[in-house]
């Protein structure tokens, strides 16, 4: 192993290099450094391992996240088995998850014009709050929010009703943007 490193590459530079964001000159400089420096190349290896772990989890529905339509399209194009639910504004949906599904994702139609910050609140059938996700990412013109729940949590659910509320938050307080009901039924084994 190289015993020293003249100027250690920052994590941000390593990631930018991996993603192809550096200029041609910076990329060449970075590559020469990496080929001559065991310590920095080890850190790049760790970064790639972390990326691989996140990627594997995401492919297997192992992480809850707000995403977008482009991300779902990529999943489908790459052969991930996706179950999709689209819930109209203030509407409801009957839903389940089967053993064949890799990922379940839900699109909540919502009027997001003029919204600065959006929070998502998960509630049980009685309206009792289970979780509040603050400042979820959204695109104003997208007409809704796309989210992926963890598939292991969905598989463990009994027959139940859940609600999700979208809240716009600003200095004046908060207002309800939309409320959505999920009537979940566990998959019946054949």
């Amino acid at each position, binding site marked *: 192993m190289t015993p020293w490193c003249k100027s250690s590459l920052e994590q941000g530079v390593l990631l930018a290099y991996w993603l192809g964001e550096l200029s041609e000159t910076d990329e060449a400089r970075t590559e020469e450094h990496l*080929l001559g420096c065991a310590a920095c190349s080890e850190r790049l290896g760790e970064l790639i*391992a972390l990326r691989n*772990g*996140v990627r*594997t*989890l995401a492919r297997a529905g192992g992480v809850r996240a707000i995403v977008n339509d482009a991300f779902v399209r990529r999943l489908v194009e790459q052969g991930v088995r996706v179950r999709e639910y689209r819930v109209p504004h203030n509407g409801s949906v009957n839903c389940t998850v089967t053993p064949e599904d890799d990922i379940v994702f839900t699109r909540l139609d919502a009027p997001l014009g003029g919204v600065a910050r959006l929070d998502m609140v998960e509630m049980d059938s009685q309206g009792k709050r289970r979780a509040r996700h603050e400042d979820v*990412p959204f*695109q104003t013109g997208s007409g809704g929010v796309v989210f992926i729940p963890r598939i292991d949590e969905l598989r463990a659910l009994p027959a139940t009703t859940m609600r999700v509320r979208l809240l716009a938050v600003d200095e004046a307080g908060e207002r309800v943007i939309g409320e959505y009901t999920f009537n979940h039924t566990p998959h019946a084994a054949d």
Partner: protein
Amino acid sequence: MLKTESESPPDDAALALRVARAAPGTDREAEAELYRRLAPRVRLYGLRHLRGEAPAADLMQQVLLMTIERLRAGALRDPQQLASFVLGMCRMVVLDLKRGHARRERLLETYGDVLLPGEALTPSPDRARLMECLERLTERERTVLIMTFYDDVPAETLARELGLSAANVRVIRHRGLQRLRACVTGEQS
């Protein structure tokens, strides 16, 4: 690991010099050590440019065999320029691999006995730990990291998709990565 008389390992340039100065093929110990050190680095270059384990492993073998071949032939005048020398070969082989030309068989026939198994990349972090650490991120950090890593999406593209500025995506990405890494490695509770 190879040690000098003073018991500190020689640097890459010193090893390259030993290979170059020895009669061709006689300092197998130095060649093997140089191979062991450079293999993971060249493999990462291959992963970056070829985006696959198999072509990266191919690149690694070809580049290292060519490096040793050229060192034996005295083609590297300044051993301090070893990284630049290897980078030149990486670029050439990537072009070759992309064109579908391979000189691997001939090289393997001549230099195959120098080959050692390539070192495995760092294993992915524990799945349960990673799930827990991802949950600890803010919504925006989690979204940006997942969408970045899933398909190696650069900040400019992600910014357009999320309606953010590229600078904003980079800031969120940087902060999220720092926190995720610290959590996974146990640097934070």
